[in-house]
Every structure is written in C-alpha cells, then in structure tokens.
C-alpha cells in the first residue's frame, strides 16, 4: 500500500463537486477523482467511467452517487457499484480520510465499504 497523499483542504472541493488527481501524481498511474458528496463526506473513485471514456469528476453528484456526464450511468460513491446501465462494471474505490481539515487520499487502497 502506498502512503497517503495530502490533496489539500476540505474547503478546496465544495459540496457536490469533485477534483481529479492526475495519474502521474499518484501511485496507481490512473486519474482518480475525489468527490465531496452532499452528505458532507469525501469519496474517491477512478476518474474514468467504466463504460466508455468520460471523466466522472465532470459528472453530476447527488446524494452519494455520481452520474456519468456522457451516458448517465450512475455509480455509488461509497462502494463504486455501477447502479445502472450502460455501465456494468463497478468503479474502483480509494480510501479518503479527513484529518484536521485536510484531505488524505490512499491511492490503490479500497474504501472500507465494498460493492
């Protein structure tokens, strides 16, 4: 497992928005998006939709789901579960922790709840 990366303060990502951490800047080599769900929690998934090529960070975040900006497949932010077609493959989750108002991402380490 890799070391956590401090990706900034909780205030950097407003609720309902997401930020992408470039694959070059994390040990997994793929882009990871960190979502600030409307329930106040932070979650991280591989940024690329499991259906085709779209950035989930550009998706529509509501409750604890993100809807892909291209064909509207929805993923659970907590578990990565693909909730509807056209996605049939779950998204990979990564652990995110908030400590002293700072966000720490554990690239490659699954979030605790699994799909």
């Amino acid at each position, binding site marked *: 497992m890799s070391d956590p990366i401090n990706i900034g303060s909780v205030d950097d990502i407003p609720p309902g928005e997401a930020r992408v951490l470039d694959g070059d800047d994390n040990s997994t080599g793929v882009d990871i998006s960190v979502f600030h769900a409307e329930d106040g929690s932070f979650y991280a998934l591989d940024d690329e939709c499991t259906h*085709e090529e779209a950035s989930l960070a550009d998706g529509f975040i509501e409750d604890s789901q993100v809807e892909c*900006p291209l064909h*509207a497949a929805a993923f659970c932010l907590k578990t990565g579960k693909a909730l509807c*077609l056209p996605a049939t493959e779950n998204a990979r989750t990564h652990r995110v922790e908030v400590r002293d108002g700072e966000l720490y991402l554990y690239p490659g380490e699954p979030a605790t709840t699994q799909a």
Partner: protein
Amino acid sequence: MESVIVVGGGLGGFTAVQQLRGRGFAGRIAVVDPEGVPYDRPPLSKEFLAGSIDAEQLLFVEPHWFAERGVDVYAAAATAVDLPDAEDDDGRVAVTLSDGGRLTADRIVFATGGKPRALPVPGGDLDSLLVLRTRADAEKLRAGLVPGARLAVIGGGLIGAEAASAAHRLGVEVTLIDPVDPPLVPAVGPELAGRLHAMHAAAGIRVLAAAPSEISVRDGVHELAFGDGIGPVSADVVLVGIGIVPNTALAEAAGVEVDGGILTDDAQRTSHPRAWAVGDCTRPRLGDGSPGRRAEHWESAMHAGTAAAAAMLGQEPPAQTASWFWSDRHGVHVEGVGDMTAGDTTVTRADASGNVQAAFRLAAADDGHRVVGAAAVDGGVAIRVARRMIDRGTAADPARLADPAVPYKQLLK
C-alpha cells in the same frame, strides 16, 4: 411465476433479464434473438462505425454472464407466439423459433424493437440501399466508407447526422439530404437544431434541403433524382435513416392489442395478462386509454425493461422520469430531456463563445414557470438539472435559467 421468455435481446430485453435476476427471480429465463448475445446499438452510428471500438465492446456483458446466471440465449427469431386463454391461470405461453425449436413459459416479454422505415419513392426498395439498425448493418456500411467514396445520407435526424459525421471523419465525401431544414426541431428546439445542423456544412459536408424523388443504380453507382430543379446526386453508398417502424407483427398475430406499437400501461403490461412489452416496439396507453407517443430512445427502453421486471415480480416499479436522449456528432455531445414541443416559451443560455448552449422549454404555471423540456450541446449538467426540475416540478426563474453567471446546480435550490 416460474419461467419467462424474452423475445428480443436489445437494450429493452437485456434490461428485463438483468433486472429479473437482479431482483431475485430464480426461475428459468430464455432470451430469443437472431442477433445472438445482446449488444448495444448507439455505438453503431458512432464509435463502432468510426472503427474505434470493436464488436466485443458492443456487448452489454460478456457471453459467460448469461451462463453464470442460468439465462439461456437462443440465437434464433421467434416466428410465432401462442398465448393461453387470458383466464387460464395454468396455461403456458409457447414460442416457435426459426430453427424449428419451441419454448414454453409462464410469461413473455416482447422486446422486438423496430426496423428502419423504407423510403417511399421509386427505387426506395433497392437492395443496395443501406440502413443502420444492427451490427451487420454497421459493418456493411463501414466497408463502403473508404476515403474518397461518395456517401449520400437520406435523413438528417439522429442516426443520419451521426453517420454523416463519422463518415466525413473517415475521409468520405458526404452529402446529407433532408427536406426539413433544420431537422430535429421537435427533439432539441429550433435554436439548437439550427446550430447543430450548421455544423455539417461547416465541417465540409454537402447539405441538401430536399427529398429524393427517385433512386436508380447502375454499375454500383446510385443516382438520386430530385424534383424541384436540384441536380442529381451520385453516390457509391446510400444510407437511409428516416426513422423506424415498430416490430409488432409477432405480438399482433398472438392477439395482443397493437396500435402503431404494442400498447402498454406504465408497468409495461400489454392487453394480455401473460405478456409484457418494452422498448421501441411499444406505445404507451395514456391514462384516458388513448395511445401516447412512442419513445424510441435508449434510456426509455432501459426504464421499460426495469419496470416490466419489477411488475412481473410484484415489486414497485421505479419512479417515472422525463425522457432523455443523447447524440454525438462533429465532436459535440448533445442531450435532450422532457418535451421540447410542449410549453409556451423558450429560454436559452449561451456558452463562453456566445453559442446557444442550452435551451429550456417553459410552461406557464399559476406561480411562475415550470421547465417541460431542455436540450443542450456539451451541457450535460444543464440537462441533469433540467430533468430534476421537470421531475420535481421545481419553479423556474427564466432570468436565472438564461444567466451564465448562475451555476446550473443553483437552479435546484
């Protein structure tokens, strides 16, 4: 209920199967489709035509998915369906297959989709005219799209525009022909229809606002003739994309009520208690019993498959939501939601370069306005917000809808 036969393995049929299993149905499921393992159609006029994805990537799921879940896939057409007497609780549904096989079950789902409408002019029935509905159609079309080939696309709607765009990018000389200028006004409203249609000419596609009156072919070259002083168009390949006719013959012959589509209620029940129907082959029966408008979009087929599975299992179907579609051409992503022909006024919002990005169709309400439809070019968030405003009946402020300084999501607050 112990067994279900799904006739048609397109999106509607596949979703019904996926949802039946996902919702806990452990009985026998058979999918019958001459196309074999279910695959998705939208890429046929986009990535698959362009050659950027292959046949395997069209599949909803890999073939072993079906075997692992005890779903039998029959690569055959259903040629006849016998429904039991509606009152007979023990009667079985019987389906005859094109390979001579015969299947029986407690329930049937008609998910037969549609077939391309033929061009109603002399020569409109030539074997060499191509259509785009199946993987084989797309493969045949793609084989003709060699650089320098001349392609005439008849019909500038969703599929015609996408195929024209993909072909143009492959170096084909494209002529796009549609008597309506611009097409797609009912789907996206006049503002965006105009912007989208203009992209064809801007890309270098020849656009003709005309309807061919006759098509002939000699030595592999087609000639399209036009009435009103427009010179003939020669083309090596002709694609006809002027809409679909729902595949209802099988259901109709089985005695199910059909009126321009298999009539269904909002749980996708047909007039027969053992038969459900989903997707492009259906037409909704409205509350007052009159037939409504056919959907013909990807997402509505998925929702219908879900609703049918839920209803067959006696479960609550998911809440209804405004209809939604997308289309990709010339590098832009188009989406529409709700009904752009309803309501009384349109409000538009411009993007950073001053182009219309989103159009919202509004209906007057006692306390202001409600969104009834919306369309956008590269404006997915606008559409997701508009859909929620339609579904929730959120009051809409036209000035805020139009103001680029107001983030779309704020409109829900």
